[in-house]
């Protein structure tokens, strides 16, 4: 089973709203990732969590706030977003952050900021 589950699949939010994207995996993976993908572009890395600790933040604006409550869950808290933040947000996981571990992606959450 290589399943990464993301909720919600679709989210529309206003620029003053606070919302969260959720991600769950039960593969025992200790590395979890958030990627952002705009239309016709490849996925871009946002954050990496290793053993529930934030290990990489790719200079993401503070209006995106990740949280890893436990080894199976990863959240992305959204506040005061801009319309240009509209994109597909992908959660992924791998056994750990060591080189060569296959990264498995969820189906993504489509975010529209109005």
């Amino acid at each position, binding site marked *: 089973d*290589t399943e*990464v589950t*993301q909720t919600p699949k679709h989210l529309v939010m206003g620029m003053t709203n606070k919302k969260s994207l959720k991600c769950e995996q039960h593969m025992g993976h200790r*590395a979890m990732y958030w990627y952002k993908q705009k239309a*016709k*572009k*490849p*996925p*871009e*890395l946002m954050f*990496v969590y290793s053993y529930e600790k934030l290990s*990489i933040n790719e200079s993401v604006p503070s209006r995106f706030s990740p949280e890893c409550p436990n080894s199976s869950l990863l959240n992305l808290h959204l506040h005061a977003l801009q319309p240009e933040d509209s994109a597909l947000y*992908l959660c*992924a996981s*791998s056994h*750990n*952050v*060591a*080189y*060569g*571990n*296959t*990264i*498995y*992606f*969820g*189906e*993504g959450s*489509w975010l529209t900021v109005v």
Partner: protein
Amino acid sequence: DQQVKQNSPSLSVQEGRISILNCDYTNSMFDYFLWYKKYPAEGPTFLISISSIKDKNEDGRFTVFLNKSAKHLSLHIVPSQPGDSAVYFCAAVSANAGNMLTFGGGTRLMVKP
């Protein structure tokens, strides 16, 4: 500067024939490569990978070839099926950068019945 490039944005192939998707990279530190397939409205699905110590890896209908000297890899799908129609992303990892994927821009494959 794009370190991983997929120069063909789209490719059209007849069902049953071979599909060849190409990927070039510039960073000589990359030594592990992966191919992902992506349907619209879904996340990328891992297909196949290859380490730089190999020049070929095969899994069913999918074969990845790596030419380190040319910094080039390709994904062969034989025989192509209509269900293979999707966007294919090449991704690269370097050992000194942990497990961070650098993606190419993707190639849209259309397999015609």
